[in-house]
């Protein structure tokens, strides 16, 4: 765990869960693995607070527990999964994706589950239906079945998954292996047994088919879980699936930028067909034959068969190698080169960082070194067609920022400088790691600035909140217009302007956090894919 990662985790935990959880979490990250007693002792917090924070973290899947170093008989040890904490940065993106795929219902479902960590289906459906009904005009209400269908769609496409049953004494790792086919089966079983088989609407009493109706009605005030019969079946968001979706989106947009719209549609079809069959960190998708692709293409694209063949051969011939051909049966077997595409995207990210930071000529040198691997200084000047003095200056600047490395090849056993070759080189993987750490630090900086801005203007924010509360209460009791304007004028114009600019600042910082998160996602996928393929 690098210092920047620990700092970012601390900031995220504080923002979402508060100071106590942040203290416990940061300490646990720094120490690695700890027992409950040790944790309470070292953070000097009361035991029950520590217990509650750990509960919160476990609920969200960020903390895992298992048998410790002393074996099953010894105390349980806890560890934090940092990756899971970083996913909190990406929550807006997940919610937006769910909205674009499944509409408002999907969006609210994902939002609820992200907020609570794990939820049963019944409670999710109820909450979402209530929320939607609340926003609808009077007289209408949200049908439970719509929400249920949205939920089941999310499960079928693997965006939601079942949490594994944590049995006592077994060590469950933080990563949830995907019991996906099992989950779908069980879900269907539950669904038919569930009360939602009958028509139900928001905020109404429900009737169930089996004889538990009276008991359910009686317990209704208390818990929802037990009455619904899907007790202990919790659902959580399948982050990996969302990440695969983001990765596919990145590849498709890259293809459409490089080639054209139709090629990107073909790649989109290919990726959609191999969504559920390709394992997570595979370097290639499953091989698809041209016949299958043609059948799967939506008719709205209007691509004829020979044209499709031409597009496929163009994709294969492209130097970026997004698509590869693995055989000739069935009209040609094609795969999408996932690892190669991620490497190209990461490389484009590195190049764009160098370009924006140091100028286009330095970017030329950087790309030249990426292509030609090892070059002497004189060769760099010749290939890049940059005058010697400027080329030297740029190379040294890149070297000082660690984006470019120097490789010494001696001619004699003593490394005499006059008799050694000095070659410049760029290694893509370590440079990607370096930029990833920079990105973590940047996000931390942005969050701290946001907290600072909020703190500076705390007085003003509180005042505006009080005024709004007064206004709301006055409106509820039906005050006159004159009273309302009087209350509104309590905020002066400069204060209003200040509030406006504060809002603008905070929005800007928020959106830039999301943008940096995109960079983090690309670099992290590339690094994971490279490590998996090693």
């Amino acid at each position, binding site marked *: 765990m690098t210092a920047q990662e620990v700092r970012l985790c601390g900031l995220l935990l504080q923002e979402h869960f508060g100071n106590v959880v942040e203290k416990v979490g940061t300490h646990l990250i720094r120490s690695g693995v700890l027992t409950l007693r040790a944790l309470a002792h070292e953070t000097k917090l009361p035991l029950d607070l520590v217990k509650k924070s750990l509960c919160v973290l476990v609920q969200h899947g960020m903390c895992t527990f298992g048998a410790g170093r002393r074996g099953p008989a010894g105390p349980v040890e806890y560890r934090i999964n940092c990756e899971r904490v970083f996913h909190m940065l990406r929550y807006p993106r997940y919610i937006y994706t769910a909205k674009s795929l499944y509409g408002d219902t999907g969006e609210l479902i994902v939002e609820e589950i992200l907020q609570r960590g794990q939820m049963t289906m019944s409670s999710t459906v109820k909450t979402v239906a209530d929320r939607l009904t609340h926003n609808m005009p009077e007289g209408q209400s949200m049908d439970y079945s719509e929400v249920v269908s949205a939920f089941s769609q999310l499960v079928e496409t693997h965006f939601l998954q079942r949490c594994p049953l944590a049995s006592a004494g077994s060590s469950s790792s933080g990563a949830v292996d995907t019991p996906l086919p099992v989950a779908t089966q069980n879900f269907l079983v539950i669904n038919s047994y569930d009360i939602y088989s009958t028509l139900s609407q928001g905020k109404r009493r429900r009737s169930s088919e089996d004889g538990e109706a009276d008991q359910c009605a009686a317990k209704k005030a208390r818990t929802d879980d037990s009455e619904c019969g899907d007790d202990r079946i919790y659902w959580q968001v399948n982050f990996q699936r969302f990440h695969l979706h983001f990765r596919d989106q990145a590849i498709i947009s890259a293809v459409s930028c490089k080639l054209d719209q139709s090629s990107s549609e073909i790649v989109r079809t290919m990726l959609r067909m191999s969504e559920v069959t390709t394992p997570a960190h595979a370097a290639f998708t499953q091989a698809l034959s041209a016949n299958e692709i043609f059948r799967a293409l939506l008719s709205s694209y209007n691509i004829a068969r020979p044209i499709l063949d031409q597009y496929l051969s163009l994709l294969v011939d492209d130097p970026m190698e997004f698509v590869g051909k693995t055989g000739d049966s069935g009209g040609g077997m094609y795969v999408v080169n996932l690892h190669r595409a991620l490497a190209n995207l990461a490389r484009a990210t590195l190049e764009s*960082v160098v370009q924006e930071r140091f100028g286009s000529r330095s*970017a030329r040198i950087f790309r030249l070194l990426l292509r030609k691997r090892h070059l002497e200084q004189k060769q760099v000047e010749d290939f890049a*067609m940059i005058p010697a003095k400027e080329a030297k200056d740029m190379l040294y600047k890149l070297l000082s920022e660690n984006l470019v490395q120097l490789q010494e090849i001696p001619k004699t056993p003593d490394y005499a400088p006059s008799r050694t070759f000095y070659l410049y080189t760029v290694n893509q993987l370590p440079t990607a790691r370096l930029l990833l750490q920079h990105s973590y630090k940047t996000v931390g900086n942005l969050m701290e600035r946001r907290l600072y801005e909020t703190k500076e203007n705390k007085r003003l924010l509180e005042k505006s909140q009080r005024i709004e509360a007064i206004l709301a209460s006055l409106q509820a009791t039906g005050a006159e217009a004159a009273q309302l304007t009087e209350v509104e004028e309590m905020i002066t114009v400069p204060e209003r302007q200040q509030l406006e600019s504060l809002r603008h600042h905070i929005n800007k910082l928020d959106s830039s956090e999301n943008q940096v998160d995109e960079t983090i996602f690309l670099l992290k996928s590339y690094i994971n894919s490279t490590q998996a393929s090693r």
Partner: protein
Amino acid sequence: MTEVKVKKESTDPVDIENRIKELCLQFPHGITDQVIQNDMPHVEVQQRAMAINRLLSVGQLDLLKNSNGLLYRLKDAQSASKVKGSDNQEKLVYQIIEDAGNKGIWTRDIRYKSNLPLTEINKILKNLESKKLIKAVKSVAASKKKVYMLYNLQPDRSVTGGAWYSDQDFESEFVEVLNQQCFKFLQSKAEAARDSKQSPMVQRNSSLATSHEVWKYICELGISKVDLSMEDIETILNTLIFDGKVEMTIIAAKEGTVGSVDGQMKLYRGVNPIIQPTGLVKTPCGLCPVFDDCHEGCEISPSNCVYMAEWLDF
């Protein structure tokens, strides 16, 4: 016995020399000692050697060495007359410089090859320069170094730097202009291909341009005072590849099609970048020069960052 004597006396040194010269004319590539011996078997080694030495000193014969041994070649009359009037040392230095061809040779290398002291060399070089037989050319690689070559030779590209250097200065604006022109040509070709709305294969092939086409276009534009060869244009196109704006493919072409080199042709195509500028550089931290010094609580921190303040008010 007397006959033998007569024969011996009749081999006059001049005759030997003339005979050798005739032999050289017969074999323009040069003759070895063996050939002279075969032709005049009655001539003794000493006389032969003397004749050859005389011809060499007068400057009518050239001594060359190849893998088999020594070769003698007739020097043409013009160059023979040039060095008349110079002494042996000068002739030696002149010969060394001539051998260096159009790459030129440095004073230190002349010294090594001729084993003459430095002062002598300098005197001889000044002499030859005043006679307009050699000239000094400044090398572009090391600006203090001077290389010497024959007066009427064109300096080689490696010394002057070729088309991109004028008077030892790298012409960056010229290169930039060429860069942009080539890119515009390729980009317009790609756009024309895209707008033509034909089948994708045809579209792609029509957006490709061979290096020959680009070369012709640049020549016709007439922005270059110097004649540019196809290799020059290819180096410019390579810089465009390193800018990420152009990609290249090599195809096999029939020998004889215009623009093909060794049975291959290079094709270039303008491309778009595959991603937008990444999120990290849209924030001030991505471009900050003091990024590594920034920590919370220090003088430079996110809370009091001037770059962020400016960026937020934008």
